[in-house]
């Protein structure tokens, strides 16, 4: 990474880290939500963007992470860090057990299977006594938003660095090969099953950590909100809008879409969703490779960028 870029990145992180000091309380809360969504998007990026398996069920890992922290802290009175580790362990176990059959499916079948699994988890968890069943669990309160903010930022930096590592490692190359041509990758010596499951588990680990932090911050969780299906589409849209399969794409996507969404809901309440949907539709047609690709190519092609995209994809 060139020195100029590295300095820029450090400056950006430093600026973000300083928000609890120069920003309002509302901004800090907005920040935590956005940062955690960015982590989810980045986690999805590993399995969806780099490996080419678009999971619609990463909310399961998020929920497992949330419940991991909640159960560890409430039922067993263990510290937060242990809870986080427990949540990650749950997520990885899930990825290993169910990843094997699910990752044999391709394309939209994989997407649907993961979505179906996500739907089922809510109902299953609602019946586990240890998890507080339908009522959920209440965690010990910790009123320290700046701390959660810095934790979330740290997690996002970790996730992004991991993705950056992917692009220059053998593991990452294997994933990309799988995405580009799975059979070709196998014939060249890539153990596709192992790599896919590992990517799924890695993706799950980050989602679980995000869920764990969120649970402790919110202090309360129940099956519906912990395994919120809507998160799936949010993280996918953010990653794709910013640019799936790139290092900064999910971050850019999460930040920009959160900002837009926030602006809209403060201006015109019900039109927010409408605009959001319209943005998605327009983006898929005009800039399917996401914002980062747009920024890169726009300098070269200008308005023709959009026309080129349409021409390449239309009937």
């Amino acid at each position, binding site marked *: 990474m060139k020195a100029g870029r590295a300095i820029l990145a450090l400056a950006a992180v430093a600026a973000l880290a300083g928000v609890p000091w120069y920003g309002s309380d509302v901004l800090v809360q907005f920040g935590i939500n956005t940062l955690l969504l960015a982590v989810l998007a980045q986690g999805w990026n590993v399995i969806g963007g780099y490996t080419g398996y678009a999971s619609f069920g990463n909310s399961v890992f998020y929920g497992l992470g949330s419940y991991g922290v909640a159960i560890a802290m409430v039922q067993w009175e263990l510290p937060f860090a242990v809870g986080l580790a427990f949540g990650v362990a749950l997520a990885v176990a899930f990825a290993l057990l169910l990843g094997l059959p*699910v990752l044999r499916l391709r394309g939209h079948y994989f997407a649907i299977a993961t979505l179906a699994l996500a739907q*089922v988890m809510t109902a299953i968890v609602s019946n586990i006594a240890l998890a507080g069943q339908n009522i959920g669990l209440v965690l010990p309160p910790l009123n320290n938003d700046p701390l959660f903010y810095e934790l979330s930022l740290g997690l996002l930096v970790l996730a992004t660095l991991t993705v950056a590592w992917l692009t220059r490692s053998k593991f990452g190359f294997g994933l990309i090969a799988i995405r580009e041509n799975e059979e070709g990758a196998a014939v060249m010596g890539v153990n596709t099953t192992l790599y896919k499951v590992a990517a799924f588990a890695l993706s799950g680990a980050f989602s679980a950590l995000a869920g764990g932090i969120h649970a402790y911050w919110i202090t309360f969780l129940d099956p519906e909100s912990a395994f919120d299906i809507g998160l799936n589409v949010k993280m*996918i849209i953010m990653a794709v809008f910013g640019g799936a399969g790139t290092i900064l794409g999910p971050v850019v996507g999460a930040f920009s879409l959160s900002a837009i969404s926030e602006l809209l809901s403060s201006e015109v309440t*019900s039109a927010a969703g409408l605009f959001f949907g319209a943005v998605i539709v327009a983006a898929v047609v005009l800039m*399917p490779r996401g914002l980062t690709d747009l920024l890169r190519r726009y300098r070269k092609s200008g308005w023709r960028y959009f026309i080129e995209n349409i021409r390449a994809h239309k009937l």
Partner: protein
Amino acid sequence: MNLLAQILVNGILLGGLYAVMAQGLALVWGVLNIVNLAHGAFIMLGAYASWYLYTDLGVDPFLGLPVTAAALFVLGYALQRGLLNLIVRAPMFNTLLITFGLEVVLTYLAQLAFSADFRAINPPYAGNSYALGPVTLPMARLAAFGVALALTLGMWLFLLHSRLGRAIRATAQNLVAARLYGVEPRHLYAVTFGLGLALAGAAGGLYGTVSQINPYIGATLTAKCFAISIIGGLDNPLGVMVGGLFLGIIESLTTLYVGPTFADVASFGILVLVLFLRPSGLLGRAA
């Protein structure tokens, strides 16, 4: 024993309705390779259309179905021609995203236009029912089932035996060859999508007679239609029928013997099993 029989009958009647809901999705998915996440929202629109026809114009919901279907056909044709044709050759994932965006837009538009109140279509004969031995057949549900059956058979005949139906299937299988034969793909694609939405609209009209409608029913219905299409198999309208009946019966049984919240778990659990064990569905060929 009587209770079980009643539950089974309920499941079958429900299943028939589910099947026609899923037909449109399966058609568009199997033929055009478009995974329409907004399908449920279009069912919702069809339901509202029927409601307005009935409430404001006094048109019987069953007799008004062709109107609803026609309106949605036009909408579908326009959407495909004007928007979806632009991304047909993009990775399939893009259709997922764009239809998701459409779903969000439609739901909000519906909320603005119709408010979030629950509505139902209750023609005067809705309360009647037939007794058939130990079971009771509610009139509205029975009629819905009958129409659903007719539509499914119609779809099957159309796709497999009519010229237009075969042209549609040919275009889906080999675009270049179809073009060489003089088929205009943009038109055919639009017709197919229009048909898919027409079916959704008709299903919505039927749905409105047996259940309450509000702007948010779209997402759950879409999910169910997915389950049905996959369980039954995408290639064959009869497969979708089987899938629908299967789901209807399973849901009824689960609601009775386990609990209402588990109906969804059962459907999705079965979906997962089918995907793991037989992705082509109970009646489909290999995908």
